[in-house]
């Protein structure tokens, strides 16, 4: 009996081991994924724990989606899926603190200067191939943000990159929700005008401050009206009419109550200090300054306020406010006591955040582990999820990336990425699965062409149609039907952080 159960478990484990590692376009059915993940043993790898140093030739035991043990010569049940980590490096899964992947439609509600009523959580797109590509870059968690078109933008959400799962299964359970603010050139539309529309207030940094102050003043009053109402119905007026709910102000009240993180896109030193001042005036906290390319100039102030910074590795020069950006930003702020992470703001950049983190060894002399923290433990702390992710410690989620080389190098290639103890990316399996996908595509195209030919024959009696046909070129490959608008333009790698094309951040 026991043997049979074991064989069944092994079969199940293998099935999940293989089904669980998803090649590029295969997605598991809901049923398969809901079943329990197998026990996994990663053996004989260099483990970069981030929290307590490096373990050479170490093992990681994963059970029920969590890290059950870390160390040398671990024992695993006979039916465990064993991943041979010889010569490989295991790190905590990368946490991208500024991402715009997995969003259906525009990442910006760019029409009004305060768009806090919109919520990224409503439009998570689990079909976005960028999820898979970022997984292939070792990313396991991402802070999905609204764009930077507004002084106060929309609500934001932290997700795990569970490729293949429906959108409802992406949010990081228990992570505090966020809201995006934007300061500087983008919300004041320095770099583009909407044709046919009058200028939108604000158009100066002064106006940006007042937009935020005005919104929070309104929110403060709104909160008071609700507090008053709650007092009244707690007392005798049980049937009092509540205030009208305002979806724009609700999240701002949450900010005032410390229940929602503020992630503020900013560049220049003066606007950083401005927001700290405004936050102090209204009694709220800025959780992270994003981009914060001049953060190094006011690092002490940021540290004193207890805010943290999430920045680029070496982007600069594309906007006036980015002209003083330096690649030493992360290291310098770290040295001055700011908690710093390095982010992508871009689906492509997110595929090599390990390399971007490494640059802080060269620019500013961070140590190997300090650099690794920039994309693992630090962003975890910034997002309030460090109890669950960000380092390889017993009890934390088994969110891991396995590299074939020290990750702090341009030569490291991700071999596997695990989330919740399940292999969501497996390079070998992806390579092996490509032929089948090609074949499926080819078969579907042929099938469609056959149908098209049959239909053409059926309607061949209309002489007028023949004329229409002549116009068509050799149409054996019909054009794809694209769905919604994405970024409107196709410039060769503009940094995502611009409002110039309207689809921006």
């Amino acid at each position, binding site marked *: 009996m026991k043997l049979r159960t074991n064989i069944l478990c092994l079969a199940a484990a293998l099935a999940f081991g293989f089904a669980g590692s998803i090649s590029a376009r295969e997605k598991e059915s809901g049923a398969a994924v809901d079943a329990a993940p197998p026990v996994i043993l990663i053996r004989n790898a260099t483990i970069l724990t981030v929290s307590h140093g490096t373990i050479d030739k170490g093992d990681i035991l994963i059970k029920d989606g969590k890290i059950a043990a870390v160390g040398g010569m671990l024992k695993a049940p006979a039916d465990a899926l064993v991943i041979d980590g010889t010569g490989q490096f295991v790190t905590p899964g990368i946490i991208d603190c500024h991402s715009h992947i997995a969003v259906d439609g525009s990442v910006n509600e760019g029409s009004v200067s305060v768009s806090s009523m919109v919520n990224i959580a409503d439009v998570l797109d689990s079909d976005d191939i960028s999820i898979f590509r970022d997984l292939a870059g070792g990313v396991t968690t991402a802070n999905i943000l609204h764009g930077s078109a507004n002084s106060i933008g929309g609500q934001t959400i932290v997700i795990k990159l569970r490729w293949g799962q429906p959108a409802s299964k992406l949010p990081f359970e228990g992570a505090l929700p966020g809201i995006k603010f934007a300061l500087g050139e983008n919300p004041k539309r320095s770099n583009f005008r909407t044709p046919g529309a009058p200028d939108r207030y604000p158009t100066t940094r002064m106006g940006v401050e007042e937009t935020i102050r005005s919104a929070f003043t309104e929110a403060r009053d709104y909160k008071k009206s609700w507090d008053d109402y709650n007092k009244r119905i707690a007392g005798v007026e049980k049937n009092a009419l509540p205030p009208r709910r305002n979806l724009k102000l609700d999240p701002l009240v949450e900010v005032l109550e410390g229940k929602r993180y503020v992630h503020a896109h900013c560049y220049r030193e003066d606007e950083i200090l401005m927001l700290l001042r405004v936050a102090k005036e209204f009694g709220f906290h800025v959780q992270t300054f994003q981009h914060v390319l001049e953060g*190094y100039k006011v690092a002490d102030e940021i540290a004193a306020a207890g805010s943290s910074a999430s920045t680029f590795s070496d982007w600069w020069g594309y906007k006036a406010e980015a002209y003083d950006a330096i690649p030493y930003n992360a290291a310098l702020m770290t040295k001055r006591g700011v908690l710093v992470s390095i982010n992508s703001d871009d689906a492509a950049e997110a595929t090599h955040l390990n390399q971007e983190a490494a640059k802080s060894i*060269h620019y500013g002399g961070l140590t190997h582990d300090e650099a690794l923290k920039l994309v693992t433990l630090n962003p975890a702390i910034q997002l309030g999820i460090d109890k669950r992710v960000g380092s390889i410690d017993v009890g934390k989620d088994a969110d891991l990336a396995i590299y074939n080389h020290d990750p702090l190098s341009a030569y490291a290639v991700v071999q596997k990425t695990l989330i919740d103890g399940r292999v969501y990316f497996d390079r070998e399996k992806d390579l092996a699965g490509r032929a089948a996908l090609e074949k499926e595509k080819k078969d579907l195209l042929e099938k469609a062409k056959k149908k098209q030919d049959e239909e053409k024959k059926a309607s061949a009696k209309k002489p007028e149609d023949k004329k229409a046909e002549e116009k068509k*070129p050799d149409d054996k490959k019909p054009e794809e039907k694209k769905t919604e*608008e994405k970024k409107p333009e196709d410039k060769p*790698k503009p940094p995502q952080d611009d409002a110039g094309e309207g689809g921006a951040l």
Partner: protein
Amino acid sequence: MNRHSLKFLAMILATTLLGAGVCNAQSSAGDIAITHAKIFTLTGPPIQDGTVLIHDGKIAAVGAGVAVPAGAQVIDAKGLQVYPGLFDPVTQMGLSEIGAVSATVDTTETGSFNPDVTAATAILPSSAHIPVTRASGITEVIAAPASGGFDSRNATNLVGGQASTIHLAGWTAEEMLINKRAAMVVDWPGIETRSFDFSTFSNKEKTFADAKKEYDTKVNELADFVEQARHYAQALQNPGAGGFQRDVKLEAMAPVVRGEMPLLVFADKARQIRDAVEFCEKQKLKLILAGGTEAWKEKDLLRSKGVPVILKPTLAEPTEEDDAYDRLLTQPEELHAAGIKIAFGSFDNSFARRLGQNAANAVAHGLPYEEGLKAVTLYPAQMFGLDAQLGTVETGKIANLIVTNGDPLDVTTDVRYVFIKGQLTSTDNKQKALYEKYLSRPKAAR
């Protein structure tokens, strides 16, 4: 000497010899000997413990037992490595300062045919981008007009102008020049069935037939222009008795139609690549392909016609949803295996310092290391006919060299010394200066 004192020495040299200026900070032109270095000549196996002697701007000697002449400045490079400086063959270096500020952007002229405009004219020698890029080990670049970049304003250029090769050091553009007229930029037209219309802020659609018609019209216009230029060039050589009216644009095309100046054609899609190759074959023009996102689809053609390809950054996103996630990363190896000469370009200015990183990623995905290194040194030099002067550490070549503490392609490597035209060139730049300034900011009062 340890790392810190070497760095300190470099700083002293830079500041005392050059004054307070950060830009174009080069040492005086005396002899320099780099000693005890591991030298990657790229012409053979590395020299484990060698010396490079620089004299009069050129590499005078390279080897294990090279004697150091008296009076030469000696730089002890024990534990360090010497490489040819990196060469970025497609940039907007000096042509654009802040992409979003159009007043600082001179990358792209208006109109379809601008063969006469020349990058060298608009290069800002004191651009902050130059010392920044140099500090990562890039010693020479090609500044290409109409080559994309952040603020290319949706240009409708067909012929964008002449690209110029420059050293990343010099007080004036003239001092920086390697080749004022290196190549003629052509933006191969594309077929856009869907475009974003800013005036209505909506997607506009065209049928393929219409878009193809527009494409064909543009290609024909280009062909006509080349034909005109050919006749003009002929007339130039044999002017008739009555003389003829000069035309600066057609005149600028003369070296191109004579086969002396290559066309640097920017094309990404398979159709564009194919048509560009066919066009240049028919028109008997020398072709260098830039971009090449779908070059793998036409690799047989590219190989058979011997077309070299300068690839866009490997770290970009694959263009199609169904593309393998590593499509652009494995392409360099695929093209190399097919016998195609490749180089890497940044196609930018503020990201030019990632040149090495892009090459390293290709190596991580199968391209042999030496090929990756050559693709950012020797091969671009060969493509532009400069390999007699640049691209390897060999006697007689221009002394554009870098001394590093490791692999110049990897992201954690420090570039300790940069030599351009044989002069020790500062690796200081605006960013380092800001770093140092704010590193020493006194702790802010609470």
